[in-house]
């Protein structure tokens, strides 16, 4: 089993953190290996930003994604530049539909999550869009690990923002439960 997930958006959205959180979760799964690799532009905000997470039950050599199972897009520019890495048939394309208008229909598996919109609307804070997104996608990444995720999120954010983040996480999870894509690719492979 090797699963490749790409998170992408622009700097400042906390894209890398999403990958870090997934990676750190794996400390709780002794039989799984994980790598998380990142690349970003030189400025601290703006600019495309991306992290590749690979989860496997074998030693992971090549640590980047070459045929991603899941791609999560959190900005229009990232979609423009990186969607071509997705396999239209196989890759589950998850996108923040607050920021991304549409995904061409060629891509068979898609899941829209209004993470930024909800973060702005419900939590008055764009900064939690990434955590919302994590909540909405964890079942598609590593099914059944929401509780571990919650623990890791709590320990990954400053104390004073802990509650806010956990709420966003739970809201995302709730969104998933109520909107989840017809076929769960996580289950299918």
């Amino acid at each position: 089993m090797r699963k490749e997930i790409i998170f992408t958006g622009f700097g400042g959205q906390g894209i890398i953190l999403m990958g870090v959180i997934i990676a750190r979760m794996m400390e709780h799964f002794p039989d799984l290996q994980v790598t998380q690799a990142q690349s970003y532009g030189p400025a601290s905000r703006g600019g495309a930003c991306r992290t590749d997470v690979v989860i496997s039950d074998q030693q992971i050599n090549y640590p980047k994604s070459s045929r991603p199972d899941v791609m999560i897009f959190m900005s229009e520019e990232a979609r423009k530049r990186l969607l071509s890495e997705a396999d239209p048939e196989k890759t589950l394309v998850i996108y923040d539909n607050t920021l991304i208008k549409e995904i061409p229909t060629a891509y068979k598996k898609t899941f829209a999550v209004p993470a930024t919109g909800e973060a702005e609307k419900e939590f008055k804070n764009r900064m939690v869009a990434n955590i919302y997104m994590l909540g909405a996608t964890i079942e598609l990444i590593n099914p059944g690990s929401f509780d571990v995720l919650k623990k890791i999120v709590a320990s990954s954010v400053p104390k004073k923002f802990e509650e806010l983040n956990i709420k966003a996480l739970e809201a995302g999870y709730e969104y998933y439960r109520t909107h989840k894509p017809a076929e769960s690719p996580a289950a299918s492979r």
Partner: protein
Amino acid sequence: MNPLGEKYLRKDFLPFLFCPGCGDGMIVQAFLQAVDDLGCVDDLALTAGIGCSAWIGVYMHVDILKVLHGRAIPAAIGIKATNPSRKVVTFTGDGDCLAIGGNHLLHAARRNIDMTVVMVNNQIYAMTGGQVAPSTAVGSKTQTTPYGNLERQLNGCKVAIAAGATMVSRWSTAHPKQLIKTFKKALNHKGFSFIEIMSQCPVQTGRYLLGSGSPQFNFQWLKDHCMKEEDPSKWAEIEAQGNIPVGDFLQVEQPEFMAEVARMNQRVKEAQAKGGDR
């Protein structure tokens, strides 16, 4: 693009790589305004080092040589030495200028070579993600001083004065009008001028030092903390309150290096024509 931008920016280099609300863009604008007022755009030659602020000059449609971290000043000297009529201006960050590049500042100042160093002080290493700079206040928590900074600040203006700079000013991005005026003064000053600009970096300084990443908050912080005071004997008091003196601190006339070089060359060549070898 606003009209100033239309006139002077490199369109194919946009957008600025600066984060939303970064003071660096405001400095681009203020500088271009001064240049526009003086009508001296064709006379300019810029240099820069490495850092966010080092990109300021890259977006302006003028000659610019952007070199290594800390080395913008010697690059400027090389350009000035070979093009004495150009107005040479260096854009550099507080880390670029005061940490790794501190020595070049001393020596350019003592030479009183005709150039302007614009040091953008955002009180941090921004480009690399928020490490302590020589300009970071004691006690500040940064990515490399997680328990509070123990090192006292290096005051660029004081150092420039001690080394012999003949014009020294400090303003902030919250003082665009004064800044434009000072830029103009420096561009016309014959000698070494040093302009420190306190500038907001919402992303690193804001986040780590001031507790808010909001551009507005960071801009307001500068407005609140920069106090005009041109008398050095009163600085200590202002600084003790956590504030920052700004103003035009010094401007004197002294023999300018390139002019002295020209005089020497003239004299030496004349002596040689007369047959003496020294």
